[in-house]
């Protein structure tokens, strides 16, 4: 037997999903995340999960892992003491950034300090021009002196970012070689390896982040790998990246460490895509709502929408990642009435302590969760994870005092108002991801996950004119499941700035060949036969003179159709195209993937014994109180159909259903139909 494990570390819990490949049956475990000692927590959790499932470690043939070690190192500023070497004249590149301030009116809000201290930033004499020509030769003696100083200072990770290295990397590579020769046991991150594209600040920020997290990630992965091996799990783990694919431990601990920084939401989207596809949907808006944040993602024509830039706490990071809009709206978001008399919800959150008033841990300020309690969507007296029992009276008091009284509304209307306002904020986020890109949300289904997503999904869909809401069987475990479904993936890019018409298909093949070869070499190093690789080529195109580009797939290696596709996409997104203008290519991209061991969705453990109806509850639906059934999710069998209103409860979430018909598909996903 060869079991596979998906292990996702979240802020509060580490989720472990074990799948038996033949039957597809899954068993899951949730253990508290041990911050600071993540490897220990993961190993203990894995041991527990195997015990619980009655398995021995040597039955495990794969361990796919999503880790927060890198992003935590950035957030907590606990990464390596990294150094930065830049072109002479540009030592303040990180401090100045783009010279903007984060808030237009609030002078107390500042840019984040750089990850590399000024004392560890060095300039070298050298200069390459925008055409790649060497204007000033590299002073190699200076580099050797810097390396010697770094060695003395005990520095073990060095980033090198020289101007225009994306077009001519010779100086950068030479600096790297000299530093490597002069220093023992040093990690070198060259910007041309991390991000070979123009825009020196963002390239430096990404390269420095790689240098900053790389030693931490490697130490963690070494500990994890040896721990798993000691347990008897021989196969080395694979690690999730922000682009939705996995890579080896060796890659994650080196030049691609930075790609684990924003991998958190990626696995969830992979699983969401798979459940949506199994349910028959290629166009899906995904909403993941937890305690403090709301993430929106998009699957369009079966593909997850991606982008190439993001940030962590104001530090830019340019790696391929899923395009996710995050808002500060969650169950813990606080509601208040402002000086102008308007009801505001979030982004301030009650956090885990004191948490919502309904949690009975001393919170008195009303939250979105409290509004859900007042309206009956979360039942008073229901036990949530751990010792929390929902206190309906406390929720009602908080809503009545802080929202009802100042607005003159009764407690139900006030609670409904809190939901309307938080939903309006979330709808704005969903529109940002769809309407701003020329996509009509009405042609999508809405797939909800996270602890709070299924409580709000029906309302969001109705406001947006969406016809179907999907709720996968284990909304709280999507990330762990997604890890098992993630392909091996490598994204490579090369800067090519030229008119598209000057590049024929032959030169396209010549330009992409080194990138393909690099992917084949990486696959070989990872023990992956190159015939399992699939290549996708795309190009960043723009009209001459424009700054922003659109990434357009280059089907069958032909550029002619790419130009046409660019005009069409430009028209769709912006309402016009300029076929009279020359089209420029700025970047060529090659994505290599290899499929996961199995694409099958895990079958949820279900309990077919017993009546799914647990009890009835009083629920506010469309402004009136109804007695509605409360159903146990694990007793809803495949093929079941019923008509709302209803509440569906499961360990990790509650689903609110209005007056809509619902059916359960064979993977356990709920389909809620909203009339047009």
């Amino acid at each position, binding site marked *: 037997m060869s079991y596979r494990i998906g292990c996702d570390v979240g802020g509060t819990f580490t989720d472990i999903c074990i799948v038996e490949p033949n039957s597809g049956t899954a068993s899951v475990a949730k253990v508290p995340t041990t911050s600071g000692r993540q490897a220990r927590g993961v190993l203990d959790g894995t041991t527990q999960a195997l015990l619980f499932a009655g398995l021995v470690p040597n039955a495990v043939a794969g361990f796919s892992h999503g880790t927060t070690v890198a992003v935590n190192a950035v957030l907590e500023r606990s990464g390596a003491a990294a150094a930065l070497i830049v072109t002479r*004249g*540009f*030592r*303040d*590149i990180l*401090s*100045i950034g783009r*010279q*903007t*301030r984060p*808030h*237009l*009116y*609030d*002078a*107390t809000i*500042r*840019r984040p300090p750089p990850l590399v*201290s*000024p*004392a560890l930033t060095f300039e070298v004499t050298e200069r390459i*021009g*925008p055409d790649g020509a060497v*204007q000033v030769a590299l002073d190699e003696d200076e580099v050797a002196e810097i390396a010697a100083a770094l060695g003395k200072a005990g520095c073990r990770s060095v980033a090198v970012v020289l*101007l*225009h290295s994306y077009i001519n990397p010779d100086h950068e590579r030479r600096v790297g070689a000299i530093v490597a020769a002069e220093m023992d046991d040093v990690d070198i991150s060259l910007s041309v390896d991390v991000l070979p594209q*123009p*825009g*020196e600040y963002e390239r430096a920020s990404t390269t420095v982040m790689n240098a900053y997290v790389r030693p931490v990630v490697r130490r963690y992965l070494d500990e994890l790998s040896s721990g798993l091996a000691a347990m008897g799990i021989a196969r080395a783990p694979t690690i999730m990246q922000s682009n939705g694919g996995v890579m080896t431990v060796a890659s994650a601990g080196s030049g691609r460490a930075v790609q684990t920084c924003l991998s958190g939401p990626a696995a969830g989207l992979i699983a969401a895509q798979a459940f949506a596809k199994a349910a028959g949907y290629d166009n899906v808006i995904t909403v993941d709502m937890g305690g403090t944040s709301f993430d929106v993602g998009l699957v369009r024509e079966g593909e997850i929408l991606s982008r190439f830039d993001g940030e962590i706490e104001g530090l830019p990071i340019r790696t391929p990642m899923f395009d996710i809009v995050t808002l500060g709206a969650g169950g813990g978001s606080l509601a208040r*009435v*402002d*000086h*102008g*008399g*308007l*009801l*505001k919800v979030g982004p301030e959150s009650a956090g885990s302590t004191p948490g919502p008033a309904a949690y009975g841990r001393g919170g008195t300020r009303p939250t979105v969760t409290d509004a859900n309690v007042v309206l009956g969507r979360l039942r008073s007296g229901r036990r949530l994870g751990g010792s929390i029992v929902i206190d309906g009276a406390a929720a009602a008091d908080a809503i009545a005092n802080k929202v009802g009284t100042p*607005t003159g509304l009764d407690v139900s209307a006030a609670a409904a*108002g809190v939901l*309307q*306002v938080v939903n*309006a*904020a979330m*709808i*704005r986020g969903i*529109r*940002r991801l769809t*309407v*701003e890109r020329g996509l009509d949300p009405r042609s999508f289904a809405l797939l909800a996950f996270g602890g709070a997503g299924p409580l709000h999904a029906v309302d969001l869909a109705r*406001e947006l004119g969406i016809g179907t809401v999907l709720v996968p069987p284990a909304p709280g475990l999507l990330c762990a499941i997604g890890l098992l479904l993630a392909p091996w993936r490598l994204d490579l890019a090369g800067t090519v*700035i030229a008119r598209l018409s000057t590049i024929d298909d032959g030169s396209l093949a010549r330009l992409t060949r080194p990138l393909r070869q690099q992917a084949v070499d990486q696959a070989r190093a990872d023990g992956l036969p190159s015939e399992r690789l699939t290549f996708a080529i795309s190009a960043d195109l723009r*009209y001459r*003179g*424009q*700054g*922003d580009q659109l990434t357009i797939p280059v089907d069958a290696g032909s550029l002619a159709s790419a130009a046409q596709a660019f005009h069409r996409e430009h028209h769709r*997104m*912006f*309402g*016009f195209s300029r076929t009279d203008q020359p089209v420029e290519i700025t970047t060529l991209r090659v994505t290599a993937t290899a499929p996961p061991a199995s694409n099958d969705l895990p079958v949820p453990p279900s309990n077919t014994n017993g009546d799914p109806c647990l009890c009835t509850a009083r629920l506010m639906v469309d402004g009136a109180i109804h007695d509605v059934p409360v159903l146990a999710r694990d007793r809803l069998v495949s093929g079941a159909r019923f008509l709302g209103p209803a509440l569906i409860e499961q360990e990790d979430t509650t689903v609110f259903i209005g007056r809509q018909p619902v059916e359960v598909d064979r993977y356990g996903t709920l389909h809620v139909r909203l009339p047009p």
Partner: protein
Amino acid sequence: MTGVDPILVEVVRHGLQAVAEEMGAALARTAHSVNIRDRKDFSCGVFTTDGRLVAQAEHIPVHLGLLAGIVERACAEMRSDIPPGAMLVFNDPWLTGSHLPDIVAVAPVDHGSRRVGYVANMAHQVDVGGHAPGSLSLGATTIFHEGLRIPPLTLVRHGEIDRSILRLFRINSRTPDEVVGDLLAQAAAVSTGSRRLTELIDRIGWERYAAAAAALIHATARRLASRIEELPQTTACFADVLEWDAQDGSGELAIEATVTAAGDRLIVDFAGTADQITGPLNATRPLTLSCVLYVVKAMLDPDIPSNAGLLDRIDVRTQPGTLVDARFPAAVGLCTSIASQRFCDVLIGAFNRLTPDRAMAASTGSMNALIVGGVDPRTDRQFSYVETYGGGQGALAALDGGDGVHCHMTNTANSPVEMIERAYPITVLRYGLLPGTGGTGRCRGGDGMTRELRLDAPATVTLHLDRTHHPPWGIEGGGPGGCSSAVAVTEDGARELPAKCTMDLPAGTVVRLCTAGGGGYGTPPERAHGDPDPDAAASPAGA
């Protein structure tokens, strides 16, 4: 707000903000110039049927007060309302409140036969003619020298673009492709905004929408009133100078503001401010208003929603014919880059006495603009590089000022070095902070910064600097920031450039620009001999 549902109002606010943001996204993504697409030198607004600003996507504060009255001023100039299906463009400073490169596009939004509002955007175009590239040159004594000035023209009629107006812009610009590309992007953004507003009203229903929009403006007014009521009921006055002399730059022009809190109203009076001049440092009244709104937001309530309600509780008194309310035909090229920043300084100086807990020392005091234009020998095409540089931010009571950052009325991103060198015949030799230029204090002012550029082709260079002799002030015993300066280095040696100038420089010249640091806050602590200087450790100078 009697009779209006406070929840609906907040839901509509989110919807309107989305309309403005979607307009902004469309503009930034389709624009051709670096200035709009990367530096985001534009703003978008949504208006009620009576032309009041109800929502805005802001990137730079200077546009806040300018957009607020734009529809009203355009209609007054036209002596009629804008017909359905039309879109106006104009850049007359007495309508826009800004300088000539800031072009406004505005259109009514009609739903069936009903007018439901207006949408507009204002964007800084690269070049609209005039003396020198960038259309913001020195040497202008009247508006006629500064470039193409246009009253409201109907760029779009019955949904069709009038190509003759595009040609008018094209033949008046050194960068015709960029100007036309940007103008089309502005028009497309207005159409986007118009569509989105109609969709929003469809979702909400007209009556409910109209009531909510009015309530939204009222809520901002009320929220601001409650902030004003918390102020000591008193008057505070502050004066500072702009540096100006048509000959040698050694003169001074007084800027003075008196702020009075009276119940729930603020009275801001610029009496004492110098008369307008025959140079491009003048501002029209809407710009002054914009500075007042910025400082009120920054000092009283940074998160208050930006809409016309901000204007309801503030009386701004200006004397026509002064620098803050210049009359036609004054030149206004430097009104945003220099004048607006000094207006802010005096307003903040006065507010510091009303809100001592939020008091802030003076910041770099200018947008530190540099414009380089000429012909790129690589392409034989005209180019125009326009950029503003950040400086030191003023210190706060408990926080050092930020280093090398844009302050107050602007917040445009820098152009990446690699982008500058690809796009223009310019090589950047140095770009860094200037350690020690922040004023001393219990909290130090932010450091200014420097950029050294080598001109690889002969070029016309325009500089907008101020605070070259009058450094940004500290407060509560804090020291002043360092002054700004500009130097040209050629084979013949280095020479100081005038702070405000337009001049031709030969290929090979290195222009070194240094921006002023911010003022410090509080008396610097006494340090025993040998104690490490915490500033030195915290500043990049420590390396």
